């Protein structure tokens, strides 16, 4: 069936940290970094040669930020002490598939001295030291951080940004599963008039908070037609991470992890942005898909604000939004994280809507004659990114 991967991948760098024992002057991440340095030195490689990060006891977002690497393959499988054996197995698959050329698997643990141990929950983490003390309070106060820079550099306005929740609500009205299906339409002005949460985000700029879930089942192409539904084929995928803390984002007006992830997905699919019929661009907040429309090449960088504002009117005087029903670029047709559902990690729902649209089972919100769909989203505050391009042919 699949190619035999036996003997196809080799370990060429291997090292411990300088000291094993009692090291209270090394942090958890410091130990990862020292081990990485020693293994890369052993292999005669630089940090810049690494394009895959696999790790446990730290998130790939943390390692990416700490070492300054923007990888094209990431693996944070963390199931206990054997995680590293599993990372080797995953690295074999990734390198064999061409997803990665140089995989760096790191371990670092302050098991005795407990320096920054309790990742994310410890007061010694990078977030606890360098963000939390300044009064951050969840996603609305951190996902909002890049926005004012885009406003400043490109003249984007809150009113333009408000077109995203307005357009997305139009789709929710057509989706019986959407939490806001009965809540009626909203205008961009309604968004501006809603309660201020964390400027520049008003309430309607923020996603819902809900309970729920979703699941996918995948098999190989040669079995796909044996199943009850029209198969949805995966044409190309991408992944990346560029930081962990939003304040460490290299450029607030562009997402490096998105660029890496989406370029990879288009390349593997052999397609360009113009070949995709349907967009699912994760909308944790109104600004989020605006970043993606630019970074994935649908709108020139800096121009998404005026582009969104350029609406049309139909014969009955109803506004047709660029990304809404009847618009030129249908996006987030389930009603999005903004009006359909957002549990905290919304990506699954973006994928599900791609599948339902490609199968032709999206009911009233069904797009006609579509063949390809893309589901793209961030992890954390533009920290990581993942992209999947699918087709029904």
């Amino acid at each position, binding site marked *: 069936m699949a190619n035999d991967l036996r003997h196809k991948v080799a370990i060429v760098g291997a090292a411990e940290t300088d000291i094993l024992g009692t090291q209270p002057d090394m942090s958890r991440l410091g130990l990862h970094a020292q081990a990485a340095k020693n293994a*890369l030195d052993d292999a005669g490689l630089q940090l810049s040669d690494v394009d895959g990060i696999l790790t446990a006891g730290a998130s790939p977002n943390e390692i990416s930020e700490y070492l300054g690497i923007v990888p094209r393959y990431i693996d944070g499988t963390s199931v206990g002490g054997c995680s590293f054996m599993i990372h080797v197995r995953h690295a074999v698959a990734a390198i064999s598939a061409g997803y990665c050329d140089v995989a760096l698997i790191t371990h670092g643990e302050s098991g005795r001295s407990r320096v920054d141990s309790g990742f994310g929950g410890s007061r010694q983490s990078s977030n606890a030291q*360098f963000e939390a*003390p300044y009064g951050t309070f969840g996603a609305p106060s951190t996902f909002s951080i890049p926005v004012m820079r885009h406003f400043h550099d490109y003249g984007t306005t809150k009113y333009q940004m408000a077109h995203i929740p307005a357009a997305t609500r139009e789709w929710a009205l057509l989706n019986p599963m959407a939490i806001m299906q009965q809540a009626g339409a909203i205008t961009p002005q309604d968004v501006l008039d809603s309660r201020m949460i964390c400027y520049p985000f008003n309430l309607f700029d923020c996603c819902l908070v809900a309970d729920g879930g979703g699941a996918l089942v995948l098999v190989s192409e040669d079995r796909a037609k044996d199943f009850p539904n029209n198969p949805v084929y995966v044409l190309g995928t991408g992944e990346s991470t560029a930081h962990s803390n939003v304040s460490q984002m290299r450029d607030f007006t562009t997402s490096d992890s998105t660029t890496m992830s989406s370029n990879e997905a288009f390349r593997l699919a052999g397609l360009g942005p113009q070949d995709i019929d349907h967009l699912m661009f994760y909308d944790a907040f109104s600004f989020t898909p605006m970043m993606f429309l630019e970074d994935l090449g649908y709108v020139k960088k800096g121009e998404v604000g005026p582009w969104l504002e350029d609406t049309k009117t139909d014969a009955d005087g109803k506004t047709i939004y660029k990304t809404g029903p009847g618009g030129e670029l249908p996006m987030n047709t389930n009603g999005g994280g903004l009006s359909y559902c957002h549990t905290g990690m919304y990506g699954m729902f973006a994928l599900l809507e791609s599948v339902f649209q490609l199968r032709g089972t999206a009911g009233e919100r069904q797009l006609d004659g579509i063949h390809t769909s893309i589901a793209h989203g961030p992890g954390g505050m533009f920290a990581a990114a993942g992209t999947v391009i699918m087709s029904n042919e």
Partner: protein
Amino acid sequence: MADYEGALPQATHETEPFWEGAKAHKLMLPYCAACDAYDFYPRPFCRKCFSWDIEWKEASGKGKIATYVINHRGPRGFEDKAPYVIAVVELEEGPSMMTNLVMDEEPTPENVSVMADVEVVFTDVTDEVTLPHFRLV
């Protein structure tokens, strides 16, 4: 002083010079002489060349607002500070750091701007912890 309820940082050996510096009202940054480059947040190595020969130098305290938000819903310890500015300041030396703006008036999009010049001020929030904040100049 009244009991401070905001989240407090806890230093590790590698970040201690930063926090001890703040307590002494100095903005200390890690520096790699080989690259002539400062970095933030502190790490025991240089992200450019992976040298582990890092020095600490005092920064000018000057910078510009790279981006910001005005938070109206604060966490514990920040409830009565709202609305307050969470900003990312790009320091003169290159690196960027998150901080709060100390202002005499309530922050609005009209009186806070991206690219505004700022300088560091130090707030002693407890006997042990001082936070580097910034003010508009």
